[in-house]
């Protein structure tokens, strides 16, 4: 799989994209932009000659899609300063979905069910992480395609908040929307998180979408802080709350599948805001993870896409540590196939310097793995398609 990297601006990115797109073995281009990169897709950058060079100006004959992410992963490392251009070896069909912040806009009507008739098996999904209807969008993907298409992807955007249009195609940027890039390539997906229950169950007695107002009848922030303080052995002050919170996500229980993690990121007026909806009436646990378990989970996610004996790496396979999420597996001779990693940015921040260990656990030794840290992950774990938080998603393509 062809991949090119640049830390240049719009002009350099344009040249790179056009170059990759023109390659004979490339039928689609995936562009991953670091949030601190010199290229900003929606800013109307000008090239060296002063002309505007946004995605819509690229001279390409194949579909191009991409997003802005806190971190871009390539060549075994992570960075936020550059732009990675990946050439896909199979045809890509793009579907743009808009209006994910407007309740009046229908989502299902923007999805083409006949994609399945054209033999597509894998779809990359990039969504504006700050849109209010991400879960609804994921639900519509599931309702339209079921599990007949393997979805993999995540939330795009900047870590500290909205920073302009974070999703784009060769036709331009997409605000408050998503892009679904489907391809006939098969894939294997592994989804793991590694977080374990430390408190709960707590009943969500009042919530509103992504904001939890009360737990067990008590103000959510107070209840949550108490649990965290008890487990951490210290009571976090408001200024350091998020530093603690990133290690204590919520987990939503389900039968036959592991917990769906919801990542709290802010407290306001006694309520807790999360990345992802926490439905009222549900039971949640407070989870906690350590470096070892998280890295192990990430390794397990990759292992779910690889046959252990064929790689001979001794990597753990399906017997992943508690908190792992089962995924699909390919035949053992698929090693060497290109892989993609979508690793939650909150894991990156939580692990800190240890993230390098996690990164090493998920990338292939030949440096061919590409990906990004995302604001939420989209994948199905041998069950219902979910919008995950704080998870590691690995997808490996094949051409069968």
């Amino acid at each position: 799989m062809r991949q090119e990297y640049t830390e240049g601006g719009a002009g350099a990115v344009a040249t790179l994209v056009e170059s990759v797109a023109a390659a004979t073995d490339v039928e689609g281009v995936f562009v991953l932009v670091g949030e601190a990169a010199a290229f900003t897709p929606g800013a109307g950058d000008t090239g060296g000659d002063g002309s505007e060079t946004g995605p819509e100006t690229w001279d390409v004959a194949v579909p191009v899609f991409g997003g802005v992410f806190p971190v871009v992963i390539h060549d075994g490392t992570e960075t936020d300063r550059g732009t990675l251009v990946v050439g896909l070896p199979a045809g890509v069909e793009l579907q743009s979905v808009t209006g994910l912040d407007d309740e009046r806009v229908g989502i299902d009507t923007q999805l083409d069910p006949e994609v399945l008739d054209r033999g597509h098996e894998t779809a990359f999904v990039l969504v504006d992480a700050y849109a209010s209807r991400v879960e609804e969008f994921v639900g519509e993907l599931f309702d339209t395609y079921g599990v007949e298409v393997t979805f993999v992807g995540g939330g795009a955007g900047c870590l500290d908040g909205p920073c302009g249009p974070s999703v784009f195609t060769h036709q331009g940027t997409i605000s408050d929307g998503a892009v679904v890039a489907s391809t006939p390539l098969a894939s294997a997906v592994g989804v793991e998180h590694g977080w374990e229950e430390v408190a709960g169950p707590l009943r969500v007695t009042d919530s509103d979408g992504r904001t939890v107002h009360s737990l067990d009848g008590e103000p959510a922030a107070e209840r949550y802080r108490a649990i965290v303080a008890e487990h951490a052995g210290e009571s976090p002050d408001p200024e350091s709350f998020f530093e603690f919170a990133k290690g204590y996500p919520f987990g939503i229980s389900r039968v036959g599948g592991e917990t769906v993690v919801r990542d709290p990121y802010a407290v306001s007026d006694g309520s807790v805001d999360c990345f992802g909806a926490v439905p009222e009436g549900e039971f949640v646990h407070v989870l906690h993870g350590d470096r070892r378990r998280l890295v192990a989970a990430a390794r397990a996610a990759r292992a779910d896409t690889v046959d252990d004996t064929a790689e001979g790496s001794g990597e753990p396979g399906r017997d992943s540590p508690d908190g792992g999420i089962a995924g699909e597996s390919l035949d053992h001779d698929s090693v060497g196939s290109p892989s993609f990693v979508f690793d939650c940015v909150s894991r990156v921040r939580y692990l800190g310097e240890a993230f390098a260990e996690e990164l090493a656990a998920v990338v292939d030794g030949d440096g061919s793995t590409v990906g990004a840290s995302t604001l939420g992950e989209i994948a199905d774990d041998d069950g219902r398609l979910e919008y995950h938080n704080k998870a590691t998603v690995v997808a490996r393509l094949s051409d069968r």
Partner: protein
Amino acid sequence: MTSRRERIQVLYELSLAVGRGSGLRETAQEALSAYLRKLNCTAGAVLRETGDSAAVEYEPVATTPADPTINDGYARAVEWLGATDEPAFPAELSVDGTHVHLAELPEFGVLVLVSGSRKIDAETLGALTATNRKLADACLAEEVERELRTQRDRLEAVVETVSEPIVRVVTRDGDPIVDDVNSAFEATFGCDRQAARGASLDTLLTTDDTDSGDASGAAVTGDGGHVESGTPSGDQSLLESGGVWGGPDTPDDPDTSWVESDVPVRREVRRQTTDGQRVFSLRTVPVPSSGGETEQFGLYIDITEQRRRQRTLERLYRAAEEFFDAPGREAVCRRAARVAADVLDFSLCGVHLYDRESRALEPVATRGVDRSEIRREQLRYTDRDSVVWEAYREGEPTAIADLATFDGALPNENTPVRSALVLPLGNHGVFVASAPTADAFDDSDRYFGKLLARMLQTALDRTGREQALRSIQSATRSLVTATDATGVAEQLVAYTSDTIGAPYVCVWRYEPGERLLRPVVWTDEAGELLGEMPTFGPGGSIAWEVFHEGSPRVVDDVTSVGEAYDADSPIRSEILVPLGEYGVLTAGSQLVDDFSRTEFEFLQTLAASAESALQIVGKRQELNVLDEVLARILRHNVRNDLNVIRGRAELLVDEASETDHAERIVDTADEILSTAINAKQIRRIVDRRGEFVATRIDRLVRSAVEGVAGDYPDAEIGVGPLPGVELELHPHFEYAVRHAVENGVEHQSGESWVTVRAATLETGVVIEVEDDGPGIPEAELDPLAAGEETQLVHGSGAGLWIVDRVVRYSGGTVEFDTSDSGTVVRLILDRATTPW
């Protein structure tokens, strides 16, 4: 492995997620999404069981993905359900390593869950039974509510689109509270829908009598009916009271107790509307609502116009009896015009009848003309291209909303009227109503105007037939009195011209020697118009065809019969009727289609009478000729010759030795002479049939006896008591007595005798002639008993015939009492019998 605690949590969460949504599909879809999320399933469906026990089918209500057929697990589940007669639940299937779970949704259908490569454990499936039941109940409730909602929406849509006012009312704390009204209610009663909702119906439809828009101003009777002021007391034709609950229902105190009735109710009410007070037929229907209380729907059907029409119709029918009884056309028209003015408020109207002579629609009866600016001459319609004539000709009513914008031909220029109604009266003419303002006649006026016109036409038809019948009766009596055929033709032409007003009438007589129809009698107008009257021969003329075929005919337009009429003929339409073997009667007009069916039938009847009269007159003429010839022969020729024969025969008797033949000749001559005398008497008797003269019985008898004695000097005739009674008898009654006596005398022999006597009866007289002769042979009495006047008798038979005839013509009877010892002839003149 799922822990018990996790299972309980998940089941609890599922239970909370399952509940009534905003519809069946939404309820099922939300629940299904929860199932898939909490049980980590890759696909699923909620299926509704349909069909009957013989053919159960499953219809998807909610599915994930939207097209579940792309999922192998779902397809397997559907296949299994279709192939299994009585599926047992819960069921577990697998396809290509994918597990499929089917659970029963009691009384609703089936829940399908595709769990992928991982099975849902049995404990969890078992624990889902209650949640599945809850889901099934929720779906069923949504179904019922959807149906109710659909019906309700349908009902509300119907209610809203209905053009009559409808109110929906519920009873709360004893008050009829308006739940809703439709647009028609708002517009009719002038109330705002929003303001009406929640208001009491008692106060919503109260009326203000002082502001009534109805000029009649109704009052309330004790039984809830209404009486219009100005109408006879008790006239409740505009409002019929009564209903299930009775009681008054007045405009200022409407009775709304129907809101508590549990059965439909119907009654008439009066309510204040934006157009004043109006009468409604209120129909109510109680409808149980989902909330347990009963709603009442009240439908107000405006019947004001219906009641008004009904009342007008009743008045019209009562008034129409007047002109049905009117004597003559003019009286009928006058009364009809009065009815139009009084009942229908046609203040300016008139009846115009067709006058063939003037060729105009002449005003026969008018109303309001004197008060208007219309000139009398404007009421005479002569322009045949005008809208009035067109309506008359076509038989189609015409309403002119505004003469100023009317694009047809008006009969008069500069008329003061602006709108008009022209109603044809069949062949009689037209009825015209007009007004000084435009659009003065609405649908109701047109309707009742047509009704009046129809009644008037019927009355005119009736008077026309009566007049025609009288005319025919008179004509028939008169025609037979004509002395000859020409006289019949003259009367026929006169009657025809007078009765149907046809100016050009003619009778053509058939001349057999020439094989022509020649004109014999015609009206002066025909003579002036046609000049030289034509003759008609075989072929080429309608008159000849009519005569030859004996079939009457009407020619509405002579141009339609080709060359049968002279192209220059001024006659445009004609009636031709045959007069048997005599000829043809024609009545012509210079106008096309100028004769009616009634006139055609009248002429046929008249012609039939004329034909009979012609036959009678002809026979009479023949009889007169025969009578004259016979009288002349008998009076002169026969008697003169007989005298010569008798005289010569007597000479032979005196001079010849053998006198038998001569004596026989003398006797025979006497008999013939006697027959001639009898024939003369018979003629006199018949000529004076029907005449009576006062006659003394005693004088009559003595005169007769003297007469017989003179002819038979040797006869022994006795005369008995004779009363001096006077009776009205035939002028030649003496003949009867003489012949009765002569009959007895002629058969006398030896000492025979004849006696004549008379006696009075209670109501008359009887004259008896008795003799002791051999009696009258039965053969001579039989014809008399048969009573045939035409029986020809001779000799003594003629004498008995004379006795019988004269006594009958005098109103009496004759009895013959005959035996071997004699005969008694009784002439009974009993005035109790009817004169013959």
